[in-house]
């Protein structure tokens, strides 16, 4: 009897315990987490959950980044952290990109080419594929191999905000305003090279002035004959050694920030010898006659660059011959290209030769053009490195223990405990023979 009463007492205790645990589970399911619990949210639903989080004065908040976090929501989390809540975050466990980097360290910055209507070039680094888009549509995608190191993408004028997405990270890229470019001054002998160089630059949108030597005391002038300085011109293009009235001013112009392009044998002109990247060697004909679409410069006659200065940078070669080099002189830049009769490319090249010739000339001039920097844009909407900003604001990602509790989630041990109590109570009654 004594044993039977003891067993009955134990059965009533187990039954009461299981009811208490069930009541506790129900209470946990229908109430918010109290102090001491970590509230877990996903970044994709943060906008919806933030008001309740802010009003509940949660002790700890953990955000799982399953989607790109807009700057405004990130700033709201910072405000929550400053109010006393411990805010942490983690990258999603699921693989979202082909390369397995769910939250890659995306960083992108845009610069505008220094030529009229030039493309916007975006330099990007990431560990996963990067997709670019503007306000209207997708623009381009850069595929990651192992990782993207300094890839550059050129896009046309974007419509609206320019963005990049890589995994769960989205960057909003600031596009600088177009620089106000001064005219280009072309100097040299009157000839087909002068004609087509001026035409190519004008057709690409540059304002071009020219001083072309025709006879002693007779120049053909296009534009004004004002002073040679950086407030009037962005670049001087010297087609040959005939610099005329420009010779006395060109070195000062470059040192003050102007650009200088030396074509063919122009580098041997006495006025520019001291600042040219190299001297121009003896003229050589091209080995090929046809203008290949891929490498049209191979068909041009060439004054190879020789005796490269120590501070000059070689940029292009044709076999063993150096064809293009550049160097800095004071605040300006000098580009030397030894090609001669580039006009033949335009007249005798393939179907795309006219456009390609224009683009080549425009790129050459743009690479050295003096252009005032556009004013800095501190717009908060622009964010080229969102992951870096997130880490800077909330600290690095953390790993949360898989059994941490949270709102709407029961402890893992609760259900087994309830079942165990009920099972033990039932087994005891059966053993005792009670019904």
């Amino acid at each position: 009897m004594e044993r039977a009463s003891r067993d009955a007492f134990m059965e009533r205790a187990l039954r009461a315990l299981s009811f208490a645990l069930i009541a506790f589970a129900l209470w946990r399911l229908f109430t918010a987490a109290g102090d001491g619990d970590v509230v877990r949210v996903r970044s994709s639903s943060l906008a919806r959950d933030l008001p309740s989080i802010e009003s509940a004065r949660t002790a700890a908040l953990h955000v799982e980044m399953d989607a790109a976090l807009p700057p405004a929501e990130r700033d709201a989390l910072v405000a929550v952290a400053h109010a006393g809540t411990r805010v942490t975050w983690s990258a999603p466990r699921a693989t979202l990109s082909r390369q397995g980097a769910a939250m890659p360290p995306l960083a992108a910055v845009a610069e505008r080419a220094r030529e009229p209507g030039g493309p916007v070039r975006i330099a990007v680094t990431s560990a996963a594929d990067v997709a670019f888009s503007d306000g209207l549509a997708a623009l381009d995608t850069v595929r990651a191999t192992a990782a993207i190191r300094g890839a550059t993408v050129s896009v046309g004028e974007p419509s609206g905000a320019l963005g990049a997405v890589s995994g769960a990270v989205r960057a909003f890229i600031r596009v600088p305003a177009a620089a106000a470019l001064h005219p280009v001054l072309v100097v040299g002998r009157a000839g087909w090279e002068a004609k087509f160089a001026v035409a190519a630059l004008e057709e690409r949108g540059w304002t071009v002035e020219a001083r072309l030597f025709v006879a002693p005391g007779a120049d053909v002038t296009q534009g004004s004959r004002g002073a040679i300085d950086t407030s009037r011109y962005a670049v001087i293009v010297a087609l040959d050694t005939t610099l005329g009235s420009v010779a006395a001013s060109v070195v000062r112009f470059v040192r003050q920030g102007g650009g200088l392009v030396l074509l063919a044998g122009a580098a041997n002109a006495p006025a520019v010898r001291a600042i040219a990247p190299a001297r121009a060697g003896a003229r050589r004909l091209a080995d090929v006659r046809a203008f290949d679409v891929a490498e049209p410069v191979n068909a041009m006659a060439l004054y190879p660059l020789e005796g490269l200065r120590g501070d000059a940078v070689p940029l292009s070669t044709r076999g063993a011959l150096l064809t293009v080099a550049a160097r800095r002189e004071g605040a300006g830049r000098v580009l030397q290209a030894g090609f001669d009769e580039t006009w033949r490319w335009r007249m005798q090249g393939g179907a795309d030769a006219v456009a390609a010739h224009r683009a080549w000339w425009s790129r050459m001039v743009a690479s050295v053009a003096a252009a005032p920097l556009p004013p800095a844009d501190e717009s908060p909407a622009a964010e080229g490195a969102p992951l870096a900003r997130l880490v800077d604001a909330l600290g690095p990602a953390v790993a949360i223990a898989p059994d941490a509790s949270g709102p709407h989630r029961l402890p893992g041990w609760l259900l087994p405990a309830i079942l165990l109590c009920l099972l033990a109570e039932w087994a005891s009654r059966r053993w005792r023979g009670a019904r």
Partner: protein
Amino acid sequence: MSDFTFCTVQYDSGDWDSAPLVPANLIDSVARYTSISVAPTGVIVPLGSAELFKYPLAYLTGHLPVRFSELERRTLGEYCGRGGMLFVDDHNHDIDGVFHKSAHEEIARAVGPLKELPNTHALYSSFFKFDDGPPATTHELNGWGDNLVHKHLLAVMRGDRISVLYSSKDYSSEWGYHPDNKRFLSVDNTKFGVNIVVYALTR
């Protein structure tokens, strides 16, 4: 290596070689008045040939009807589209003549319609100054051909550049003499030809 080579266009129809002395005379004038490196002899290039693209200024004249073949028409259109310039002169000095009418049609089909070139155009000041526009020729003043003194030249423009320059003033006759005979002239009447060459080389 010369900066400029005088090119005469050979076309399939008509008498393209009606002014054989013009090239030498203009070459002489360009060499005489400018420092442009000019080839001592000109070249003759078929209009339908890819060789035409080596000479961005070409001269075309004749007395007879002009009828371009499909290849010549296509080549001329491409040539002008890339920046080449064609100078056409009516050797008849007759706007009712067959050369004038047919050449107008063919140029319009290949490149575009000819329109009057203003006498203030840069062509008239590219080297020598011609304040009154294109200089008159002796054939105009003698009443030959259409008995008109044409005040304007015609042109097809590509942007602000001349693509085709057309003359009804018969410069082919005016300049068709041996350069040595310039010494008998009080005024060198080939100076306007120098303007055409300098304009082509700078614009």
